[in-house]
């Protein structure tokens, strides 16, 4: 059986390692957090002293990290994955990074004689525990197919979405759907309020569109506004930019992006995307 090495065993990586162990795979782990490694070693994983060390003993390496910078350091840095990766071994990159970083990493990995698969995780830690995680995968199809048993040992489904970059780009598509749904929700809400429709009536219409949106809307209508950072606006802009470069007509997204920019001008409080848009549309309501 192939040996799988996991670099990054935090909220996502740890349950992934456990599912692999349960599936009978020999598992190597590396994390800067020694405690996490100790916990997993009790479950049967082998600790490594560095990403390089881990790579040198693995047939497949999975990076499950946070930001592009962290991933680049763990893969390309001194003592990183590439420094130890065996010829023909596969790196499956599972972190939240953009498609450009992913493509750059792939080139370096392949330049060093390794192989590269891009993956995006669709789920949360508890979804991994219940073995319901979905993978979106991209890259060379035959390499992705070779990894299939690993994906279905960790989760329940892997969907091949296209060439390198495609799995990470889908995140942008998700953000664009989010942004548009959010914008139209508040635009129609402001329309309803200006026309004397009660919030309850409006909630009836929203309720057929999923509980997630109802809850979000209730919080905002109750005045509970969050200021946590969000990447929706950035992803939206990035998406429109890519569409421009490829001449893909996106009239709706371009409008949403313009509305988002107008709302940003007024967002002195630093609200996250949905709050920011609501404050923007709320400002258009005529006070009685």
């Amino acid at each position, binding site marked *: 059986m192939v040996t799988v090495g996991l670099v990054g065993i935090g909220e996502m990586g740890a349950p992934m390692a456990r599912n692999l162990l349960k599936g009978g795979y020999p598992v190597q782990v590396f994390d800067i957090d020694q405690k996490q490694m100790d916990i997993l070693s009790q479950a049967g994983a082998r600790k490594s002293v560095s990403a390089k060390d881990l790579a040198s003993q693995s047939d497949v390496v999975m990076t499950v990290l946070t930001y592009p910078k962290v991933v680049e350091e763990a893969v390309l840095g001194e003592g990183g994955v590439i420094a130890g990766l065996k010829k023909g071994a596969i790196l499956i990159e599972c972190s939240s990074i953009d498609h450009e970083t992913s493509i750059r990493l792939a080139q370096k990995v392949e330049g060093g004689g390794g192989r590269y698969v891009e993956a995006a995780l669709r789920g949360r830690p508890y979804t991994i525990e219940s073995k319901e995680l979905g993978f979106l995968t991209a890259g060379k199809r035959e390499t992705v197919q070779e990894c299939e048993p690993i994906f279905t040992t960790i989760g329940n489904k892997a969907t*091949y979405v296209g060439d390198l970059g495609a799995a990470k*780009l*889908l995140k942008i598509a998700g953000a664009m759907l989010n942004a*548009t749904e959010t914008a*139209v929700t508040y635009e129609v809400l402001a329309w309803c309020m200006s026309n004397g429709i009660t919030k309850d009536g409006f909630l009836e219409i929203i309720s057929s569109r*999923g509980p997630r949106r109802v809850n979000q809307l209730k919080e905002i209508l109750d005045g509970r506004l969050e200021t946590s950072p969000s990447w929706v606006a950035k992803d939206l802009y990035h998406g429109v930019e890519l569409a421009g470069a*490829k001449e893909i007509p996106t009239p709706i997204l371009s409008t949403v992006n313009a509305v988002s920019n107008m709302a940003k001008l007024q967002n002195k409080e630093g609200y996250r995307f949905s709050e920011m848009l609501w404050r923007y549309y709320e400002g258009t309501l005529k006070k009685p």
Partner: protein
Amino acid sequence: MINIGIIGVGHMGTPMAKNLLAAGYPVSVYDIDEKQMDNLAQAGAKKSASAKDLASQSDVVLTVLTWPNVVEEAVLGEGGVLAGLKKGAMLIECSSIDHETSIRIGGKVEATGCRYVEAALMGRPFEIEAHNLLFLSAGKKELVQECEPIFLAIGKKNLYAGELGTAKLLKIANAMFNATETIITYEALTWCLGNKISQEGFLELLRERRPDRAANLERLMKGTGLDTHPSWTAKDVYHGLKYGEDKDIPTPLLATVNSLINLAKAQNREGYSFGGMMWKFYERARKKG
């Protein structure tokens, strides 16, 4: 059992009348289209000579018509509903009319000692046939409650929206949502294909968020989702935009949606319903990807 009269037995009125007949109600019908009346007469309905004639024999009258001026003529005109409606009888207005017309008609009906309930039909003809129609209703709550058995004989559910005018407005709000969500789905798919992301990848993304929309999209991808059933989404969006303009409500997104609908309409020679029309509209851009 009370007598029900239906004025307007077209795409929507006909299956509504059939459901009422199936539930055992005595039903009178009136339409300027004699053939439609004949069809329903064979199913057990009674034909009337005019809206007035129909109203004089009904306890509850439903108007299921098209445009505000048509409804006003049928209700307020000579030989119209009000000329025949019995004291205490009820008019349930179900047409695609604006809230202001509805409120005006409601006032006139009540002034003559009759009662008025506003309804909006949230569904299409085949959904009425399948008994899946959703009613939004507005007006005095106790009157709406009295109509509940009729709503449930025709459809599956009735939601009380609030005071007079709100059912018509909410239907438009719902159409504005539907239109925007439909278009953004096709646009985001186009974006994905242009960026070399597979159909299946996008479907997976959509499934997690809105399984209903993902299922619709899958049918369209397979070429089985196009239909020419009548739909009123485009008309409702236009009305919504117009009410916004009248009140200086800024709706940048809906204005764009409405423009796209108009562009798509110009190409819709096949007469596809809203979803199919917008699907075709993005087709060229999709195929380029």
